């Protein structure tokens, strides 16, 4: 009869020659299980702290972005205003009624609130786009003087997260802040450099006919719709073009931007 005592079974296992197939499989399993517990334990326990860190980081970047827009600090002081946070429904191009900033995370956990993008539409390499997004507005009286839009998409090495600021006319970029990226250090990661981000300020996104013209140039910027490309980071530069064009386009914030221009927001 087989001996079912776990202790003696364990001892028999240890006594097996290292080359035996059973011991190889069992050792592989035990090491993997141990490591899996270690890694998932650390991730789960530390996730709240990391999320808080990232939120604080994002808040700091938004504040820095607003402070970096010319005249904005003065405007903020004049209006006594602070940024208001709004969840928008991207499909309907208006403020979401059922979703608030507090319930946004729960809403986005439901895949029914995501829209799959076809290959032709999916400039930013997202796969699918959330139907709700949290944006930040600065109002001067009734008019919107600054709109901050979180954007994201696939970079060269991984996802790039950023916040794009548009001025009141909605066709001029006020600034850009990168909130997350994993591009090649020294090359693509230079998208985080303040000098390059500052070059976005004042760049037009659409021409008089309303066509989307924005691009990161290959080399020096030639038109008022372009910013300089980053030398040695062609893939990251073109990813930035695609991400920004996607989010300003019809699948992104395009309808919302038009609604704001018509004064319907």
């Amino acid at each position, binding site marked *: 009869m087989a001996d079912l005592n776990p202790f003696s079974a364990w001892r028999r296992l*240890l006594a097996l020659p290292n*080359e035996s197939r059973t*011991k*190889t499989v069992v050792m592989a399993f035990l090491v993997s299980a141990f490591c899996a517990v270690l890694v998932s334990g*650390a*991730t789960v326990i530390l996730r709240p702290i*990391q999320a808080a860190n990232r939120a604080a*980081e994002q808040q700091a970047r938004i504040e820095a972005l607003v402070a970096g827009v010319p005249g904005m600090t003065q405007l903020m002081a004049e209006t006594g205003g602070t940024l208001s946070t709004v969840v928008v429904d991207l499909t309907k191009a208006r403020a979401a009624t059922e979703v608030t900033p507090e319930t946004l995370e729960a809403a986005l956990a439901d895949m029914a609130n995501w829209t799959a993008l076809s290959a032709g539409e999916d400039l930013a390499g997202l796969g699918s786009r959330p139907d709700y997004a949290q944006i930040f507005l600065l109002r001067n009286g009734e008019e919107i003087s600054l709109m901050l839009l979180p954007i994201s998409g696939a970079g060269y090495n991984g996802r790039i997260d950023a916040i794009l600021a548009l001025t009141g006319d909605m066709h001029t970029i006020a600034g850009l802040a990168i909130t997350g990226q994993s591009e090649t250090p020294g090359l693509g990661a230079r998208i985080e450099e303040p000098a390059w981000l500052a070059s976005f300020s004042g760049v037009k996104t659409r021409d008089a006919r309303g066509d989307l013209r924005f691009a990161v140039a290959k080399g020096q910027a030639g038109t008022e719709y372009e910013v300089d490309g980053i030398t040695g980071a062609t893939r990251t530069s073109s990813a930035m073009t695609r991400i920004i064009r996607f989010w300003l386009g019809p699948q992104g914030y395009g309808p919302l931007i038009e609604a704001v221009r018509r004064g319907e927001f």
Partner: protein
Amino acid sequence: MTAPSPLWSTLTQPLIRQNPVTLQILGICSALAVTTQLPTALTMAGSLTIVLALSAGIISLIRRHIPDAIRLIVQIVIVASLVIVIDQLLQAYLFEISQSLSVFVSLITTNCLVLGRTESFARHNPPLPSMIDALGNGLGYSLVLIAIGAVRELFGAGTLLGYQVLPLAEQGGWFTPLALMMLAPSAFFLLGGLVWAIRTVRPEQAEPPEFAAPQIPEGME
């Protein structure tokens, strides 16, 4: 004077005499990348030392029961898990520094130094000597990183650990930062200079030439 105990020499040998970076030229990728400032160099050095010591300890504990056929993958899995845990800890408690270290903490997994020590030492020795050997090697690596990081931060930005040491010219002082020190090649130059200096003081570290220059026979052009 008594002879130093074997454990003590296990710990101190890798500091200079058997330094993994300057003698064996292992792990220099990260040594080049994270040494622009002293804080990142210190964090990286600490992380690598901890990963190295823990993985050596764990692998040494199970050394008699690691099947030969899968020994490398077992070691890599253990090292990689420890690296992920350290990376998560850094992201939770040292967020700013973990942002500037970017991928280099995760790349500790592929640092030849770690696998080199577990494969060559921890697999054949009991836990205590293994961990001390790993600690010594980690400290040897740290020594190089800190030295290069200090030189690069001092001459590249005029600061040490963020404190202004050399007054900058643009703030009314006399020191103009050397932009080269902020770029990766300067770490190569410094590391090369360090290896040269150590091998001049300790000629036994110099490697014999691998190839003799071919003799050109007389009369041939």
